[in-house]
């Protein structure tokens, strides 16, 4: 049995909605930074979306970028300060819609940064509009009849876009259970270890519930991820160069 204390980076209560997965992800990210003794050196690049709510509550140096451009900012920071752990923290609308180009090109250049991409399948902060990651038939405020993939394309699987690139680490996890949370924490740790050993681009996509905009009770949100979302976005490690193997 070990102590489970709130990590030092969580300096204030978070501002997310009840049942939001960001709260869990914030905590495990903070735990990893503490355990790796990186909290004092880390520089985070956030853009626009619910992730912005971390700027006052998650106590590392933050730089806020224009919507979608977090990976480009992180590139500028990391090239200038290669000794510092530099990470992006973005939602799927931010990183995969408006910021698809910046996200992909950071991976394409194999920038030595860590990307935390939180996928809840919608634009959360603006009220639950359809995102590239929304599922076929998913009802959102901008796909009221359900997402029509003939008109809007298939759900964007960012892992499939990146897995053949020359990058350091790529994994997808979820926060639906103790087991999954512990596993995604391991992924995040692997990602930062990749970066700190100069292993190149590392990305962890995390399937996360948005009970508010999904209009689901929190417990049903977790079930929805396990039963449905993961069929489109399978969990696991996809690229792993160096480091220990755990799966």
């Amino acid at each position, binding site marked *: 049995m070990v102590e489970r204390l709130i990590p030092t980076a969580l300096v204030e209560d978070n501002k997310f909605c009840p049942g939001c997965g960001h709260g869990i992800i914030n905590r495990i990210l903070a735990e990893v930074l503490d355990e790796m003794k990186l909290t*004092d050196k880390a520089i985070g*690049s956030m853009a626009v979306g619910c992730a912005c709510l971390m700027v006052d509550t998650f106590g590392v140096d*933050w730089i806020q970028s224009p919507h979608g*451009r977090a990976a*480009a*900012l992180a590139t500028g920071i990391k090239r*200038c300060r290669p000794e510092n752990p530099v990470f992006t923290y973005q939602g799927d609308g931010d990183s995969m819609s408006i910021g698809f180009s910046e996200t992909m090109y950071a991976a394409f250049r194999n920038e030595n940064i860590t990307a935390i991409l939180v996928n809840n399948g919608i634009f959360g902060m603006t009220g639950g509009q359809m995102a590239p990651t929304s599922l076929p038939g998913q009802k959102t405020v901008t796909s009221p009849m359900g997402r029509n993939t003939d008109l809007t394309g298939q759900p964007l699987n960012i892992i499939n876009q990146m897995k053949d690139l020359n990058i350091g680490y790529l994994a997808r996890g979820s926060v639906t259970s103790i087991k999954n949370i512990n596993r995604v924490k391991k992924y995040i740790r692997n990602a930062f270890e990749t970066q700190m050993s100069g292993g190149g681009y590392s990305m962890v996509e995390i399937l996360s519930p948005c009970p508010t905009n999904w209009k689901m009770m929190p417990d049903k949100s977790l079930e929805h991820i396990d039963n449905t979302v993961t069929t489109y976005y399978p969990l696991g490690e996809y690229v792993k160069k160096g480091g220990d193997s755990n799966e």
Partner: protein
Amino acid sequence: MALKLMKGNDALAEAAVRAGCRFFGGYPITPQSEILEYLSKRMPEVGGHFVQSESELAGISMVHGAAAAGFRTMTSSSGPGFSLLQEGISYIASAELPAVIINVQRYGSGLGDIFQAQGDYFQAVKGGGHGDYRMIVYAPASIQENVDFTTLAFDKADEYRNPVLVLSDASIASMMEPVDLPEMHEHDPNKSPHAAKGKGNGPFKRITSTMYYIDDFDTYIKTKYDNMAANEERWEAVQVADAELVLVAYGITSRICKEAVMLAREKGIKLGLIRPITLWPFPAKAFKALPDTVASFMTVELSPMPMIQEDVLLSLDTRKPVHNFLAGMNIPEPIDIVEKAADCIKQTAKGACNG
């Protein structure tokens, strides 16, 4: 120091390096690509960083990141690319970070064309991005000024913690003149008060719009830009002491106008010239200081529609006619400027108004 014969773009890029710029992110577009080409080789030589970004949007955001890390940093673009930079410029201004932006103007809206022009004036000086910000805009007219004002731009960006724009054009970019380069200046990024470098034992930094953290932000930001406006006007006045008509032109066009002034004087026509060196703040003081002999003005612009004319009108205490010579896409001939100016002097005497 020995003079060096350099192209405008190369000289500008070398000036940035010597000003301590150690990060450049940018995207190719004619006629500024030589700045990228030069820095792709030069930055590694001085321990700096060069990234050819996937777009101007990414390039300016990389610059934003490097500025937040405390580095002296720059991007450059032209026309269509300058439009894409506006997002990042607005964010950098809002975060009160220093950065230097270069726009080597080319002709036209949309795709336009690659030859010299001055059509980005409004976008440059009226704030092309969203929200409430201003940028000091320097308009070099020679290769030496490309060097001098790029150097100054880095100092002013640091002084005000604000992006500063150098508005060059395709002519200055590609021509060569002798330059006297400054000594190498090293900038210590760790001494930048705003630099993100990890919180260490102290409080964490939030490099975002400063409006979130400043009481009475409206007053604060207005005071900041009022101070810039009051203190940063620069201009050159040529033969204005007894002028009847004063030409107003900046950058490459001002040099043609200078030749026109000399030509006019040979013919006994009393022309003068005000050359704004800063386009924002526009040198209103230059106009307030003019003698009573000046009865009218004529702007000379490398664009098919008047732009500077508007700022000249705003700078005049009394309503005097402000004519314009719109050269469009063609380099004007000094003699043509003199002839139109002479005509305007006559029109003014007859009470004709602007246009």
